[in-house]
C-alpha cells in the first residue's frame, strides 16, 4: 500500500510528446482511473510508474521515495498489460506462480502459501480448470484473466492495470468490473487503472484523471468529471453519446444558436448573473447532454426549434436519435417507447437547467 506521485513528468518518443508536464497523486489505497482515448498517454503513464520508461523530465515517487530511475523489479508494484504478456513456455499455474517465486520473495512465501494464493486467485477469476494449459491454448478472454491473476497473486505496493478487461465479453466484463472493485476495496491496495471506457472509469474510480494527448485535462471524482467538467474536451469525452455543443450569440436573457436556421433558447436567471460575472467578452458556447433534450411533436409551442430525424440507434431501453437542422447534427437520448418516425420533422426542447457554458476561445467551462 502506497502513495504514487508523478511530478512534472514529461516523456517524448522522437517527436511525439507522450506525456506533457503531468502531475498526478494517487492516494494510499485509492482506486485511481486514467481515462483517455488511445494515444492519450495512459500506457506511458503506467510504464513510467512501473519503471519501464524513464521520464525525460520530472520525478516519480512511490510513497516518499524517489523511484524515477529505479529498476522495475525494485519498485514492488504489480502490473497487468493489455497485451497479456503471458510466458508462453509456462502453464497457467506456472504463470501465476512466477511472481511469487522471484528470488527476492523466496522468504516471503512458503511453498504451500504460494500454491494456496494461486488457487485462491484462480478461483476468483474462474480459471481453476485451465491450470495445466499453456497460453497458446487459451482464448483471448482467458488469457486476459490469467494476466490479471498474475497481478493479483501478489500484495504489492500498487497494482497498475492497463486495460485489463478490455478483451472480455460484455457479461464477464461487467462482472469483473465489480469483482475488481471489490477486491481492491477488500485489500485496500492502491490501484492505477487505465481505460478508454468512460463507463468503467465512472463506475470504478474513486478518482478519475482525464488524459488527452499527454496532458491531464482534469482530475476529480466521477461526479466532478461528469457534472463539473473543466473544459469542453472533458465534457464531450465523458458521457455517451457525447454532449452537443453549439456556438451561440448570447443576448442577455436568451441565446441565439448559430446554425443554418438560428433559433433561440432561454437562459435561466441564475445562469444569467453567473455569465454576467464570469464570461467577459468571449464567444460563448452552450453544451447540452443528449439526455437533456426532449422530443416533442413539430410545431409544439414548447419546442425551441424543429429538426429532422436523421438516424435512430436503438440500444434496448434507450435510443439515440440523431436529428439534423440542415447540416447541424443534434443527438438526443430518449426512451425507446417514444420513438419518432424516421425522416419526420420533430420539435426539440432543451432543458436549460442542465446547460454547460464554454468559452469558445479557451474551451474552458464557465461557471
Amino acid at each position, binding site marked *: 500500500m502506497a502513495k504514487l506521485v508523478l511530478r512534472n513528468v514529461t516523456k517524448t518518443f522522437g517527436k511525439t510528446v507522450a506525456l506533457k508536464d503531468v502531475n498526478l497523486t494517487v492516494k494510499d489505497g485509492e482506486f485511481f482511473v486514467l481515462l483517455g482515448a488511445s494515444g492519450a498517454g495512459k500506457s506511458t503513464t503506467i510504464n513510467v510508474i512501473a*519503471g519501464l520508461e524513464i521520464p525525460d523530465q520530472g520525478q516519480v515517487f512511490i510513497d516518499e521515495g524517489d523511484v524515477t530511475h529505479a*529498476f*522495475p523489479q525494485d519498485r514492488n508494484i504489480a502490473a497487468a*498489460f493489455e*497485451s497479456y*504478456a503471458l510466458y*508462453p513456455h509456462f502453464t497457467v499455474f506456472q504463470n501465476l506462480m512466477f*511472481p511469487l517465486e522471484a*528470488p*527476492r520473495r523466496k522468504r516471503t512465501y512458503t511453498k504451500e502459501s504460494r500454491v494456496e494464493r494461486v488457487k485462491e486467485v484462480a478461483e476468483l477469476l474462474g480459471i481453476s480448470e485451465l491450470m495445466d494449459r499453456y497460453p497458446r491454448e487459451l482464448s483471448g478472454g482467458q488469457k486476459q484473466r490469467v494476466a490479471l491473476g498474475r497481478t493479483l497473486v501478489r500484495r504489492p505496493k500498487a497494482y497498475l492495470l492497463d486495460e485489463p478487461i478490455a478483451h472480455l465479453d460484455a457479461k464477464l466484463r461487467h462482472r469483473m468490473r465489480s469483482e475488481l472493485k471489490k477486491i481492491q476495496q477488500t485489500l485496500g491496495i492502491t490501484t492505477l487503472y487505465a481505460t478508454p471506457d468512460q463507463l468503467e472509469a465512472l463506475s470504478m474510480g474513486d478518482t478519475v484523471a482525464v488524459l488527452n494527448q499527454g496532458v491531464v485535462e482534469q482530475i476529480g471524482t466521477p461526479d466532478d468529471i461528469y457534472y463539473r467538467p473543466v473544459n469542453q474536451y472533458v465534457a464531450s469525452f465523458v458521457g455517451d453519446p457525447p454532449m452537443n455543443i453549439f456556438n451561440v450569440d448570447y443576448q442577455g436573457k436568451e441565446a441565439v444558436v448559430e446554425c443554418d436556421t438560428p433559433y433561440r433558447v432561454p437562459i435561466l436567471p441564475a445562469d444569467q448573473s453567473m455569465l454576467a460575472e464570469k464570461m467577459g467578452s468571449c464567444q460563448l458556447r452552450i453544451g447540452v447532454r443528449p439526455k437533456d433534450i426532449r422530443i416533442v411533436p413539430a410545431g409544439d409551442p414548447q419546442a425551441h426549434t424543429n429538426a429532422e430525424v436523421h438516424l435512430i440507434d436503438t440500444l434496448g431501453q434507450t435510443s439515440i436519435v440523431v436529428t439534423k437542422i440542415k447540416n447541424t447534427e443534434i443527438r438526443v437520448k430518449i426512451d425507446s417507447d417514444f420513438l419518432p418516425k424516421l425522416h419526420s420533422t420533430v420539435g426539440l426542447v432543451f432543458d436549460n437547467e442542465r446547460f454547460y457554458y464554454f468559452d469558445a476561445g479557451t474551451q474552458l467551462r464557465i461557471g
Partner: protein
Amino acid sequence: MAAENHFDDLSEKAARKDLGYYLRAIFFGRPARLVVLLLFIALILIPVIFVISTSFKIPLEIRLGGSIFPQQGVVTINWTNAFENVPLFKFLTNSTFVAVVSTILALLVAVPATYSIIRFKTGGWFLPSWILGTYVMPPIVVSVPIFALVKAVGLQDQLMGITLVHAMANIPIAVWLIDSYVRTIPRELEHAAWIDGYSKFDTLLKVVLPLIRPGVMAAGVICMILSWNEFLFALILTYSVRSNTFPIGISRFIGEHGMQFGEMSAAALAGMIPIYILVFFTSRSLVEGLTRGGVKG
C-alpha cells in the same frame, strides 16, 4: 505443388508455345529438375563414396588408381592398420573435448552478449559490426597473433589452448545465429518478468533462454561442427598427440610413413562418424535454426 500451379498459370502463354515455353519446359520441367538434383547429389556424394570404397580396397590397388569401386576384393586391413598406427582414440577424445568445451564456452558468452546487444544496445553500432567483421575476416590473418597470445599464457600444445581459441572464433557465428531468435521475443514478456520481481539476468535465464532454446541448440551444433573440422588454428597450436585434434592428427600421422591413402580414408571415416551422428539427431532443429534468420529477419 506450388511449382506445378505456377506452370498452370502459364497455360495461356503456353498456348503460344514460344521459345520461352520450350526453354522452361526443358530446364524447369519435372524430369529436368530430377536430373539436376541427382547431379548435385552425386557431386556431393561421390567423394564420400570414394573415401568409403578406398578404405576397403587392397592398398596396392589404391596406388594403381582406376575405378571408384574395389575390383580386387574387399579388405579391412586399412581399418586395422589405421587403428594400430594412428592413436585414433586419443584424437577422437581430444576433438570431442575441444568441440564440447569450446561450444559451451562460446554459448556462455554468446547468449548473454546477443541478448545485451539487442535489448540494451550494448556496444552501440560498433560491437555488432565488429563481431560481424571478425566473422568475415580470414582466420589466417590472426594466426600469428593468436599463436603469440596462446604461447604467452603457456597454453600451446595443450587442449585448453585450442579450446579457448575455438570458443573465441565461434562466438561471432553463435551471436549471429541466436540474434534472430532473441528478436522474435516480445519485449512485454521481459517487462512483465521485471515487474514480477526478476532481475535482468534472472529474466534472461527464466524467460528468454527457454524461448530461444532451439536457436541456442542450433548454434551449439554448428559450433561443434566447426570446431571438429577446424584445421588452421589446430595446426599451429597443437604439436603432439597430447593435444592434436582429429583433422591435424590424421593428416600428420598418415604422412609420416608415406601416403597411406587407405589408412587415411579409414581414419577420416572414423572421425566423421561422431559428427554425423550428432547432425543426424539434431538435423531438425539445425535446419530450423539456420533458416530462421532468413524468414523472420
